[in-house]
């Protein structure tokens, strides 16, 4: 595709339910990132993938949050037992390479707006 795509665009769930958010990166991009944009916390980094590995998952706020990437392409962010404070826009970005010491622009998707009732 032409850009990073995310699905669903909107998700409303009830407190305590699990949710899965999907990200399709730009074809050929080996690096993939998840960020969260919320009213209280601004834009925060969650996790970074290089290929299928996650060398930096320092931003995941709790063990209810997990992410995986398969085939070096699609990534899924899973939130278990959702809480109201999880309500936010979840943004995915991808870039080529992502090697240390080099710069590769991160291209962002439109985001998934998650609302936990």
């Amino acid at each position, binding site marked *: 595709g032409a850009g*990073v795509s995310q699905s669903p665009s909107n998700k409303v769930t009830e407190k305590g339910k699990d949710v899965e958010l999907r990200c399709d990166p730009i074809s050929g991009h080996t690096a993939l*990132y998840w960020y969260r944009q919320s009213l209280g916390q601004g834009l925060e980094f969650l996790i970074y993938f290089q290929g299928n590995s996650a060398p*930096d998952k320092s*931003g995941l706020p709790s063990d209810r949050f997990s992410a995986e990437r398969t085939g070096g392409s699609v990534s899924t962010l899973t939130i278990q037992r959702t809480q109201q404070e999880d309500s936010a826009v979840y943004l995915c*970005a991808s870039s080529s390479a992502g090697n240390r010491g080099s*710069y590769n622009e991160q291209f962002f998707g439109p985001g998934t707006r998650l609302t936990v009732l």
Partner: protein
Amino acid sequence: AQSVTQLDSQVPVFEEAPVELRCNYSSSVSVYLFWYVQYPNQGLQLLLKYLSGSTLVKGINGFEAEFNKSQTSFHLRKPSVHISDTAEYFCAVRPQGAQKLVFGQGTRLTINP
């Protein structure tokens, strides 16, 4: 650790007036610096970046920013704004050797006719 402070949460200006959006950062390591723009109901788009070299960098849509190492600032400027510049602007840093972006809280730029 790194932190980014955008000094103004909202900036209202009149059309065709100049604007400056302020950004300061702190970091114990060298960083790359960025400004991103988020138009209403859209994703983030890179406006400009500073990696090295000339401290004055030019971006898209007539924006420019100047890196000031001594003041740890990276303020964004435009000499004459247009209604279409209404958006939220985010300053970000990326520590050299790391991949994640650290963002400021954002500045909402509102252009009045």
